[in-house]
């Protein structure tokens, strides 16, 4: 029989989180971020977190929420600074920031989930990203040795999920959620729709439930849009 990963709510889902842990957050910009788990982490109050997330949210939403409460010690991201509190903490030295190439960020997540401790990538050679890293040439081209991440928790968000943890994402909100779901020692998925096993077509599942330890239906999804760009309907 299929396994059951359902927990009652966000509070139960984040159980085990401790100060100074390394945790991952899916999402790109504000799209596909684990909104409900972030809110629960704020309530929980765990401090000194090292957060691996492509971006750092905005003031008052997404990871911005945990920055306000000074719960974040360090951000590992590819692009940040869409929020003023982040900028203030970074410039004042309160917040450590490790900026790494986006593809390397994604691959280090995937490698962590796939049992690949390290791999070579051309990204960052000849730049400050290469400082202290092994350089090795393959096919006449220089590459850097990059290592898999090591995260205690991964928080991801999907559109639909079943009780066994199988996930389906919608549109571009899949982004980092899939690779991070593979990478967490404990991966917590929040979904908009929680369904019974058998309701998702086994051929159309994006993330197999084996990667997910806990799943719950998020209480509230604001799904804020960062840059609303539209065109007018022609008459």
């Amino acid at each position: 029989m299929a396994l059951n990963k359902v927990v009652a709510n966000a509070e139960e889902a984040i159980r085990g989180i401790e100060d100074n842990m390394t945790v991952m957050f899916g999402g790109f910009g504000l799209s596909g971020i684990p909104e409900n788990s972030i809110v629960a982490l704020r309530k929980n109050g765990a401090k000194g977190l090292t957060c691996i997330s492509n971006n750092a949210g905005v003031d008052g939403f997404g990871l911005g929420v945990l920055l306000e409460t000074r719960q974040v010690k360090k951000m590992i991201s590819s692009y940040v600074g869409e929020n003023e509190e982040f900028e203030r903490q970074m410039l004042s030295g309160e917040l450590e920031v490790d900026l790494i190439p986006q593809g390397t960020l994604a691959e280090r997540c995937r490698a962590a989930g796939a049992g690949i401790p390290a791999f070579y990538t051309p990204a960052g050679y000849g730049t400050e990203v290469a400082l202290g890293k092994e350089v090795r040439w393959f096919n006449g081209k220089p590459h850097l040795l990059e290592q898999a991440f090591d995260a205690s928790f991964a928080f991801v968000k999907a559109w639909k999920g079943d009780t066994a943890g199988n996930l389906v994402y919608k549109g571009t909100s899949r982004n980092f959620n899939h690779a991070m779901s593979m990478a967490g020692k404990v991966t917590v998925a929040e979904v908009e729709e929680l369904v019974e096993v058998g309701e998702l077509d086994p051929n159309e599942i994006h993330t197999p439930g084996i990667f997910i330890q806990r799943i719950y239906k998020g209480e509230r999804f604001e799904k804020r849009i960062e840059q609303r760009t539209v065109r007018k309907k022609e008459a």
Partner: protein
Amino acid sequence: MGLDKNGIAQRIAQELQNGFYVNLGIGIPTLVANYIPKGIDVEFQSENGMLGMGPFPFEGEESADLINAGKQTITALPGAVFFDSATSFAMIRGQHVHLTVLGAMEVSDQGDIANWKIPGYMVKGMGGAMDLVASAKNIIVAMMHTNKKGESKLLRQCTLPLTGTKCVTKVVTDLAVLEITPKGFLLLERAPGVSVEQIKNATEGRLIIEGDVPEMKL
């Protein structure tokens, strides 16, 4: 004198070939999508996880689940596909994307590019730029020839922290189209009404001028 941003985008669009998968950076590069030549089919890749990116949605049809790498709401064309970030950069690193168009703050005459960090200013990060420039076979830089102080952005050596080395293939500016060669910037075309002399004066890196330099056709 010289092209505006749309003119630069229009000239770069002439580099599109039938069957190309193309990644367009933020800024001028995004405008390239408005000038796809007739009879040329290309697909746009957005590194946050889609191929077959279309125009902005109609008012009221925008979705938080459908954005581009600039975090703008967009649409999907028929034949589009969504995928995760690791797969997206597999495409980029694996050289499946045929053309990358990026903005830059500086380009050196060996093809180095600096476009992510200015010491002393808030650093936002490199996003996907380092993966793109380290991997792509065909990288066109879209930028103004000089900065706001009138200083050349086409240099012998970049002064800003690098994004990648020896990777740029062409530069299209408001003044000219230039190819990176082992000997420096080879001047291919002048913008309408711009003289070779003006380009010379605006270029700090090694500039190669061979014979008559034609004017761009837009």
